[in-house]
Each structure stands twice: as C-alpha cells, then as structure tokens.
C-alpha cells in the first residue's frame, strides 16, 4: 500500500474553518477594544459591556427572551413528553401518519409560520403580546422535544412498566411513577434544544411580537440594521458564549444518555 501524505485535504479543512471562525473571533476580540471603530487595537477595556448594561432596551429584551424561551421550554417539554409517552405505549390506526404530521411545523420555513400566525391572531382578535410569541415558539418547539423524548423511550424496557401494573399501579400512576422518571434526562436535553431554538428565533417572532415585547434576537436584528457598534460586539460575545455553553451541555447530556 502506498501512502503519500497529501496536504490538500488538511489545507482545505484549515481554510474552511478559518473562514468560519475568523469573523466570529474578530467580533469577540473587538468587543474588548478601546477604540470605537476601525481595526487597530488601542487597548483592553470592558466599557462596552458596562455600557450595554446601561441600555434599558437591551436589558428588557433580555428579560423578555428569558420569559418567552423559559415558558416555551417548559410547555414544550411537558406537551412533548406526554405525546411521546402516548405514542410509545399505544398503537392505533394512522399512527405513522400522525407522527409525520406532528413533525411538519419544524420543516415549514419559520417565516411562513410567522405570517400565518400573525394573520390568524388578527382574525381571532388576539392582541400581540409575549403570549403570542410563546404560542408561536411552542408550535415549532414541541416537535423537537417530542421526537427527542420518543427516541429515548424506544430504548425503554417495557417489562418495568408491566411489573408496575402487576403490582397494582394504575395507568396514570405507571406513567407518573415509572415512565416519567426514566425520561427525565431526555426531557432536559430536549428542553435545552427547544430553549436554543426559541432563543435564537427571529423570523417567527418578528411577526408575532407586541410593540414592547421584542426578544433579544429581535433587538439584535434591529441594532444590526443600523451598522457595526462595539456594544453590539459585546452583546454578541455574551450571547455566543452562553449559547455555546448551552450547546456543549446539551451534547454532553445526550452522550451520557446513550451510555
């Protein structure tokens, strides 16, 4: 077997990753730069971060996002878990069809979901608020929690359930005391995933948010349109840091679950 070292693939990977990471790195580095514009480094500072805290809009957008994504995550986990348990335990006609139907909201482009819910709220006379954003987010987050939890249930030992029933546990009691505790890890990791999707959404929220209810992603979107700003660099750095941490935690949890 001849094996010559070919530098091509390594170079390609290096170039691809460089293009991917350099813009992000530049943004992070310049969030600590004293100078407001340009690319010359004039010294380390944290003033853009402090200035950010003094922006009431940014702080409010952050709290809005926490409320919206928090409620979305909670409801999505519960509704997804229940549906997954039902799907796992019962067989019925049209199950496969229902399964693919319940998956559609995640494939449909976020923007379509946004405009259709927007018109729907209008005809139902529902005023736009944080609640209307939450409804929209739950709609595309439940399929995520549902599918994650369902796939974790496929490895669940059915004999434990039978044992519980034989020992006199009711149908609901079995679900509550036996099935639920077993899917907690999947509920947590799918919840983190749902939180990420909800937190990052712009295309749906853009249409269904009330005037004072903009989420952090929407706030960033509004700011981006006005151009490059060091405070925005700082905000982006904070968001990137927390999202990457969240992503790593999710991955780690999913890996532990598989073991």
């Amino acid at each position: 077997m001849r094996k010559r070292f070919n530098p091509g693939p390594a170079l390609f990977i290096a170039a691809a990753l460089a293009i991917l990471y350099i813009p992000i790195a530049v943004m992070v580095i310049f969030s600590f730069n004293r100078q407001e514009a340009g690319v010359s480094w004039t010294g380390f500072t944290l003033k853009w971060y402090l200035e950010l805290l003094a922006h009431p809009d940014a702080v409010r957008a952050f709290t809005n996002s926490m409320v919206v994504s928090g409620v979305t995550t909670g409801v999505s986990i519960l509704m997804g878990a229940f549906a997954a348990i039902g799907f796992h335990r019962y067989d019925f006609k049209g199950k496969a069809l229902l399964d693919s139907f319940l998956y559609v909201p995640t494939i449909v482009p976020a923007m379509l979901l946004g405009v259709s819910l927007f018109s729907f709220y209008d005809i139902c006379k529902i005023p736009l608020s944080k609640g209307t954003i939450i409804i929209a987010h739950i709609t595309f987050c439940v399929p995520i929690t549902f599918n994650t939890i369902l796939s974790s249930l496929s490895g669940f030992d059915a004999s434990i359930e039978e044992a519980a029933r034989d020992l006199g546990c009711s149908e609901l009691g079995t679900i509550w005391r036996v099935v639920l505790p077993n899917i907690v890890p999947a509920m947590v990791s799918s919840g983190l995933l749902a939180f990420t999707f909800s937190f990052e959404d712009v295309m749906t929220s853009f249409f269904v948010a009330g005037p004072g209810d903009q989420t952090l992603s929407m706030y960033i979107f509004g700011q981006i349109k006005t151009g490059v700003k060091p405070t925005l660099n700082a905000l982006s750095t904070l968001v990137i840091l927390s999202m990457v941490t969240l992503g790593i935690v999710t991955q780690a949890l999913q890996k532990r679950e598989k073991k």
Partner: protein
Amino acid sequence: MKNQSSFKKRRLSVMGMTIGPMTAWTVLFFVFPLAYIVSLSFCGRDAYGGIVYAFTLKNYQTLAKPVYMQVLGKTLRMSLIVTCFVTLIAYPYAAIAARAGKRVQNALIAGIMVPFWTNALLRIYAIMNITSANGLINTFLLGLGLVKEPLQILYTDFAVMFGMVYTMTPLMVMPLYANLQKIDGSLLEAGRDLGASPAALFLKVIFPLSIPGIVSGVILVYIPSMFSFYIADALGGGKSIIIGNVISNQFSTSKNWPFGAALAVLVMGLSTLLILAKNLLTKKLDY
C-alpha cells in the same frame, strides 16, 4: 379481567390525555393559520388595507407582474448560486471528515457545529464587521496597497450570498457526512483492487452513493435561503431584495396581507414541489 370495556375506555382516555394536547395544539396553531393564509390569498383588499372576504384571483394576477417575477427569478437564482457554493464547500469537508480517524472525525464535526449553535444573526453581524468599509478585509487590502479606497463589499448581492453560504454550510455538511460515513469501506477496496483510479472510484462509486445526501442537503439550504429576509436586510441594506423581503413587507409596511399571502402560497408551493421531487428521486435511487 372483570371489566374489559371500562379498561378499554380508560385506556382511550389516557391515550387522549397524552397525545391529545400536542395534536390539538398543532391543529389549532399550525393547520388553522396555514389554512387561513391560503384562503386569505384569494381575498381582496379595500383602500385602507382592510381585508375584503370575497373570492378573487387578483392577487395571483398581480403576482404575475414583471416586477414580482423579477424578484422571484432573482431569488431563485441567488438561492441556486448559494446552494452550489455550499455544496462545493460542504461536500469535500464532509468527505474528508467521513474518512478521517474517529477522533479527527468528531473534532471536524464539532468544528462546524459549534458556530451553528450560535445565533445566525450574530454570524451575519460578524460578516458585517469584517466586510464594512473600515473592517478587516478593507484594512488589509488598503494596507497591502491592493486597492486605493475601501471596496464596497457590504450592502451588495455578493455580501448577501456570502452571508447565506456562511450561515447555511453546516446544514449541508450534516446530511452529507451522515451519508458518506455509511458508504461501505470494502466497496472502495474492491474498486481499488479491480484497478480503479481514485478519480474513477469517486465518479463511479462514491458520488452516486452520496446523491441522497446531496439532495437532502440541497433541500435544507435552498428553501430557507429563499425566505431568509433578515440576511438580505442586514447584508443587503435594503438594496438587495429577495422574495422573503417582499412577503415580509406586505405584512408589515405595505399592509397588503392578501397579496403577501399569495406570495407566501407561491413560495410554499415551490418548496413543496422541491420536496416532492426529492422524495421521488431518493425513491428511484433506492430501487
């Protein structure tokens, strides 16, 4: 088993309690709104932006006007270019990753997925940062004396397409990687033993087997890129308009919802056709 029917009833009610809420939710907040927007596309509009509930095809007639057809054509073209570039980057990346050692494989996949966890908006902003008049690229070019004044990169079609390629490449890497990884190594060995050159091996074995991966990647990139109005807004600065912007404007500033709905239905129809074509193709390849 003294009470079979009550057991059955109980079972049914638990089933409804578990599956019911999610199904009801999806019908109420997904099917109804979507059905409403389809019917809205056949409604009229009065002078004040109000909706007139009477059947008309006017919106679809407006849609056929050259202005809108041009935007649609441009969107389809831009999405196509974006998809081609994404494929050209994602394919070799996925192929290299799929054939590397287990550790390198994990590192390469993590390398492309980590930025994907961060908001797409922030990645778009990062692009703005380096392409602006006093950003990294222009400072670099000016410093080298390659250009006399800053290049206008930001707020062009190029910037929009670059942003789309930048944000959507991971979407293509994942299905391709999953697909290429499954290709049986012994198949390649057999080819090599029978005297196939690396190029022939790729063209006759690897590439045909990876078509399903390419197709799913294309769907994952092409459809969202038609809708990503925020990328066109941020990197195109209002000068580069795609169909996503036009739809978004109808629902916000222009207040012509029925027309916006018709546009949305059109793009939705195109997307559905693409997905159907994909299913047909993968079925055919599956024999």
